[in-house]
């Protein structure tokens, strides 16, 4: 499967008479976008705001972030199973409005979380302070319950992103990258001198506000399966996960998976990248056993010498991470784990809820309990009062002057377990 990804660099976003890209600026017809995003009888109103890097703007609570993309050649469409049919995606050509993002905000539950600050200390913890954000605020009709509310806001964000993505269809990209994965036997024979590496891509799948979809299917309903890595770039994996802002994977991060990007970057040089196994993080211990058994079986079946395993979330998924690691290592296949930590505000506590001596190669994405003070912003898009009730905040987090004292777990993407974030370690 071969995919060309053409990036159109977006350096500014403005409202305009028509939705188009001109000289690196994305112009957005506000009324049209509101109409498209709100095209659902369960939506009462939609408002659209712009938030640019460096502006004194806070977005709270953030539900999802989606990158505008459009299919130019090849089968299927962006976000299959939701916005288009279920044709296979991941081949042909896709254009991306690189640097632009749709951010959805809507108070689905009272403790809804996720902060994006476009300026100040908070901006240093979220990758979405660096994107030209089109913020879509969705109010559902009054009678809507939590389950449907989540669906409504999720789909409004997808519609908005695909609508904006269309503006890039006829634009010549500034950069084109090509990614290719061959059918397994051909791929295995391609670089016989290099170690064969697969990627075990764990997806959050526990229930309401904790779900992830593959071609529109709730991933907790599937058994682990093989995915061509390029499918992710076309939105085959979509997020319905809007709890635990710091270490959930917004749809944008799935579309831009840095693990897949980096594995492709080394493909043919230091490794032979075979592809992805997507697996779930269900709530029953037997589901965990079944999925980790099948994941280990698939890794062995692919003939991998080593795997990268990334986790999504904390607590319950730690058990899945450890099971995957143990079962794959016991087959003589090396693992490298990517996770984040809840090591307490002083960083001194046990980081994960489970562990294994076989997990001896582990990359951390940071400590979610780290405390920061987020300065007051001039403009708040969304609902500032939720700062007191979101995870990582406490009664009094929201200070009288509008600043917020909180753990970084409230910040969207702060400890992202695919590594799509700013935290890093430096040798001093």
């Amino acid at each position, binding site marked *: 499967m071969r995919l060309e990804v053409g990036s159109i660099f977006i350096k500014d976003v403005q409202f305009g008479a028509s939705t188009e890209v001109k000289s690196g600026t994305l112009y957005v017809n506000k009324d049209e976008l509101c109409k498209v995003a709100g095209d659902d009888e369960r939506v009462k109103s939609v408002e659209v705001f712009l938030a640019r890097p460096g502006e004194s703007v806070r977005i709270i609570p953030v539900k999802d972030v989606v990158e505008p993309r459009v299919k130019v050649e090849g089968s299927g469409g962006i976000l299959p199973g939701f916005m288009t049919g279920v044709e296979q995606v991941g081949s042909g050509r896709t254009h991306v409005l690189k640097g632009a993002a749709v951010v959805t905000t809507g108070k689905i539950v*009272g403790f809804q979380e996720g902060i994006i600050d476009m300026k100040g200390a908070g901006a240093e913890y979220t990758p979405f302070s660096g994107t030209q954000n089109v913020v879509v605020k969705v109010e559902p009709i009054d009678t809507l319950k939590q*389950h449907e509310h989540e669906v409504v806001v999720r789909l409004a964000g997808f519609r908005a992103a695909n609508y904006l993505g269309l503006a890039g269809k006829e634009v010549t990209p500034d950069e084109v990258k090509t990614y290719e994965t061959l059918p397994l036997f051909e791929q295995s024979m391609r670089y016989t001198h290099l170690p064969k590496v697969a990627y075990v891509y764990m997806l959050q799948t526990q229930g309401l506000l904790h779900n992830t979809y593959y071609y529109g299917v709730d991933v907790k309903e599937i058994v682990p399966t093989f995915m061509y890595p390029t499918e992710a770039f076309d939105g085959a994996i979509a997020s319905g996960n809007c709890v635990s802002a710091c270490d959930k994977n917004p749809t944008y991060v799935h579309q831009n998976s840095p693990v897949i990007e980096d594995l492709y970057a080394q493909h043919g040089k230091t490794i032979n990248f075979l592809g992805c196994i997507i697996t779930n993080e269900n709530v*029953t211990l037997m589901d965990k056993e079944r999925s980790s058994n099948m994941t280990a079986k698939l890794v062995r079946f692919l003939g991998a010498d080593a795997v990268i395993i990334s986790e999504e979330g904390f607590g319950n998924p730690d058990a899945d991470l450890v099971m995957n690691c143990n079962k794959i290592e016991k087959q003589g296949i090396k693992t490298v784990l990517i996770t984040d930590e809840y090591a307490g505000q002083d960083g001194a506590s046990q980081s994960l809820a489970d562990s294994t001596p076989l997990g001896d190669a582990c990359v951390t994405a940071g400590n979610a309990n780290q405390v920061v003070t987020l300065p007051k912003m001039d403009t708040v898009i969304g609902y500032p009062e939720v700062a007191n009730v979101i995870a990582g905040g406490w009664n009094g987090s929201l200070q009288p002057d509008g600043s917020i004292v909180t753990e970084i777990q409230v910040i969207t993407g702060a400890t992202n377990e695919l590594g799509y974030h700013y935290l890093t370690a430096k040798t001093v």
Partner: protein
Amino acid sequence: MPIFLFLFFYFVAELNTIELWNDTYMSANFHIITNNPLVREKYPLLITMLDCGVEGVFLAARDEIHLGAVAINHPLSGSVKPNESPYKSLVLSLRRGPLDEYSLTVIESAIEVLRKMPVRNIDFHPRVLEDFQVIDLDLLDSAIVALPAQYHT
């Protein structure tokens, strides 16, 4: 007179409902330890309702595991942190066998995680409490739907 008739039929209907629940659950070989009122409403005959916080639910589950019960769902299910949501529902086998060491490790680890998290002292609005209850119930439903084959209602 009509009101007496209404009450009579209502009473009969209620009895039938209870009978139905009894029929459905009389052979259940698991139960739910919970402090969530919504779970009590949905699974009235399957629950052990506790009037305590999340730690109390964890400790009750740990005691049962020490007596030979098996944990069916993960106690840290949900990204809503255990010091954030006031509600927790755990599914355990009714069967008492030899100590299941994995269940014990999982519940002890959950207790450790809970105790290291700071108390947040938030006086939640009733609407927010309802949201927490709905999320906990949904996570529990995910477990009930995926009950291993040896467990039945």
